[in-house]
């Protein structure tokens, strides 16, 4: 194959002011991180609430959370995104629908939609991890906390969740990396994130090999950095005298 590699393409001007093509990747990365981190906040909070719901005594509460998980885990992410983007806005009350479609910019609209979609999708997965983390703890921990007079919310807040989260840091890290990678579906609904910007460069310059090499490399490096960060968090939170929490 005779391909003329041209790495200099990233430094060529786009024609808009003094902007070069590399700027697209920077703004794309920022958008990817912005949407992924916002969605992660939703996923962590909602996932924790749902995970707790799945472990409390009381079947109805647990079933509601179970139904949520079933719904969001068994429909492809891309389908969910299209539903959120193309279907749901028409079901919303008129003023909210108009606000989404007309008052805010298409990019903001896409950003909100993708954040909600990714957040709710990932919450189902976080829920299952939180549930297993809690269930991995000896039943005696709950009993001991209750026996001291703690109310059930305090038992979760003070005793169960701090231990459960330490146990599930490794799978949560996976989920964190997944949300960054999954955010690339946003390129299909006009959010100028990293993949969309990569594709745009291909459209403009036809330097597809360079473009996808750089795009791939950025995803890889960002996720590696996140992985090292999470390992550092895990080490910092390690409890002295314990190799692994849970089980007996």
């Amino acid at each position: 194959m005779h391909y003329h590699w041209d790495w200099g393409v990233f430094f060529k001007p786009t024609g808009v002011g003094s902007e070069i093509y590399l700027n697209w990747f920077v703004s794309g990365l920022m958008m990817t991180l912005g949407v992924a981190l916002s969605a992660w906040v939703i996923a962590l909070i909602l996932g924790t609430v749902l995970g707790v719901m799945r472990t409390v005594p009381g079947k109805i509460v647990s079933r509601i959370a179970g139904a949520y998980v079933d719904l969001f885990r068994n429909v492809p992410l891309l389908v969910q995104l299209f539903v959120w983007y193309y279907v749901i806005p028409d079901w919303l009350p008129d003023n909210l629908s108009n606000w989404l479609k007309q008052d805010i910019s298409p990019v903001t609209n896409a950003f909100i939609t993708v954040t909600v979609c990714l957040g709710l999708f990932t919450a189902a997965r976080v829920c299952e991890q939180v549930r297993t983390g809690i269930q991995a703890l000896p039943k005696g921990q709950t009993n001991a906390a209750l026996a001291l007079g703690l109310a059930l919310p305090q038992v979760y807040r003070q005793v169960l969740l701090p231990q459960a989260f330490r146990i599930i840091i490794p799978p949560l890290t996976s989920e964190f990396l997944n949300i960054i990678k999954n955010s690339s579906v946003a390129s299909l609904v006009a959010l100028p994130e990293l993949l969309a910007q990569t594709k745009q460069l291909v459209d403009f310059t036809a330097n597809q090999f360079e473009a996808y090499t750089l795009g791939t490399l950025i995803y890889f490096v960002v996720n590696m950095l996140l992985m090292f960060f999470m390992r550092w968090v895990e080490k910092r939170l390690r409890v002295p005298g314990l190799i692994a929490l849970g089980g007996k």
Partner: protein
Amino acid sequence: MISIKNVSKWYGDFQVLTDCSTEVQKGEVVVVCGPSGSGKSTLIKCVNGLESFQQGTITVDGISVGDPKTNLPKLRSRVGMVFQHFELFPHLTITENLALAQTKVLGRNKDAAIEKGLKLLDRVGLKAHAHKHPGQLSGGQQQRVAIARALAMDPIAMLFDEPTSALDPEMINEVLDVMVELAKEGMTMMCVTHEMGFARKVANRVIFMDRGQIIEDANKDEFFGSPRSERAQAFLSKILAH
């Protein structure tokens, strides 16, 4: 102080407790013994509502445990409990373990709670370990901390659920010593245990259970002297044989 009347409990079709009745007076030490699966632990967990029961009544200091209107957390905060597997909170230091319920349940301020905790830790001989995490202590030490943690709530009675069963033989005595001392100070205690030496030394009464029933409920001397039921005689002859 603790009154158990005609308590029965089922797991599905399986009856774990059958018509159990007994009393623990203030300042009394009652030992509950019996073979595995006889319902001892289940019965003692019914006393502070960790297990529910379908029939009968249990009252602690006049408050009905089974009544849905009872504020269970409040009642539990007044009854100390020590578990077979210690159940210290592994992510907290010893000091934090001792202070947690004092601050969150009783609303004591943090300094007062820590001070109280350290005083009790000193009493069980572990003040030097206050800064450590449970995983850094031996089983016997953890169980002594667990006793101190329960005492920090100023309980009106203490429940012990096989407190020495998970311990190496060497560590059993250090825990029993603390319990004996507690009994001598007049603490109301209900202890599920197989430590007959402990029962002989401090118990007022001994309850023997088998297959979910209280077979024998007798004064200590009577129980060790001439147990009425054959089942209790057989049990005693087995565990006292060596």
